């Protein structure tokens, strides 16, 4: 496509502004609305904090936002949340920011078996999509898909789950972040490699050791529907939100260079 036409089409992309200034700059203005994005990384890299900030900003912009916790109870989560300068209690009280525990949804749906089959996956997807529709949710976080995958018998069922959930939420105009836990040495962005293949975007968060210093990093590897930086950034989790600066290369060139 000629660059002028391409530029014009990119301008028309409806963006979900994350509110994280550095990330919005990386993404050329925000996540294309309706995308399902995998937020992946090992423990302690800031995945949950990034996702929570995304939701809080959404609620502040007047977009109903929902956090679905799979492992940690939301009560515990809220106790440990960073005391953001921009957080307002009324966001929760007035129903713009919602928190739900997935095990509670399992109970309500009677999904008590240790492993889910196709039928149960469909029930779960329907329940989440109905919630999103009824509550007019525009931003959703599922933290984490890794814990859900323990109940899925095969990669095919996992594929079905992510694909159906992502496409139906996208139809509703809901932008979804799915958290994925990986090991620090993992070569894939998700447990089975399925989630990364069918998501619209991948944001990798990591710990980079450099001469004994441990830096938190963020890199957008893929994002459909927008131009974006693919460079690695260093981040800090602060009460003013996630801050990002470019990773310094120190004049490094290819391996073996100066």
């Amino acid at each position, binding site marked *: 496509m000629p660059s002028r036409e391409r530029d014009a089409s990119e301008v028309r992309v409806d963006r979900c502004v994350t509110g994280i200034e550095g990330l919005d700059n990386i993404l050329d203005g925000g996540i294309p609305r309706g995308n399902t994005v995998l937020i992946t990384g090992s423990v302690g890299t800031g995945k949950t904090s990034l996702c929570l900030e995304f939701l809080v900003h959404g609620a502040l912009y007047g977009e109903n936002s929902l956090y679905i916790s799979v492992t940690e109870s939301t009560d515990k989560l809220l106790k440990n949340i960073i005391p953001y300068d921009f957080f307002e209690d009324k966001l929760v009280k007035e129903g713009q920011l919602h928190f739900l525990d997935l095990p509670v949804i399992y109970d309500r749906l009677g999904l008590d078996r240790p492993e889910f089959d196709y039928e149960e996956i469909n029930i779960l997807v329907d329940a989440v999509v109905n919630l999103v529709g009824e509550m007019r949710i525009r931003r959703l976080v599922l933290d984490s898909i890794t814990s859900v995958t323990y109940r899925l018998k095969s990669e095919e069922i996992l594929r079905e789950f992510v694909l159906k959930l992502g496409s139906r939420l996208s139809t509703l105009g809901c932008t979804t972040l799915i958290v994925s836990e990986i090991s620090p040495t993992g070569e894939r962005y998700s447990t089975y490699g399925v989630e990364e293949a069918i998501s619209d975007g991948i944001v990798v968060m990591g710990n980079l050791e450099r001469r004994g*210093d441990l830096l938190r990093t963020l890199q957008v590897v893929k994002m459909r529907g927008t131009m974006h930086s693919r460079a690695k950034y260093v981040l800090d989790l602060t009460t003013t939100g996630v801050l990002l600066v470019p990773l310094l290369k120190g004049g490094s060139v290819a391996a073996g260079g*100066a």
Partner: protein
Amino acid sequence: MRELAARIAQRLMDLPEGSAVALRMGADQYFDTIRGILDVYCPKKELEALYVTSTIPSRSIINALDVLEIPLERIWFVDCISQIMMSSAEKHAHSIYVESPTMLENIMLKVEYLIRKTQSRGAVIIVDSINSLAIHNNTKILSEFLHIMVNNLRSKKASTLIFSMEQYENEDIRNMMNLVCDETITVEAESSG
């Protein structure tokens, strides 16, 4: 002492906002320079002073400011040296800490954090000093750090003042400062006459 501080402040007053300035000095002019910036220039311009120290712990500078009767309300420190010294000194409310002067990205992040916390009422960033940072970092990464930080601050209309102690300068440091700074001010000792 006050005369030299006033002269330094006057030189800085004439600079446009968003400037990057190398302040070359001898050890004898160190506290005069600090006084000129923190006690004269910043109050007159109503600027927040964000003081990045990798030379001596922020607590020592705060103690010196106390002796000089310079108020601390609008002075904030990014202290890159206390933690690496494994100092048990009590943390100060006006200091935030970076684990090591090698964590240059974290210095930028803490400066950004302070700019946000102070609501960007207009700020000047003091880097004390290029020589102590050069002890812990090679020239390439240090040049990259200064280049990115100065330009980022410039876009926010914040000025950067970079201290360089003349007796510890070398060719690499001079080249680096020439590259990133708009101006060099050499702080001369007061003449006795």
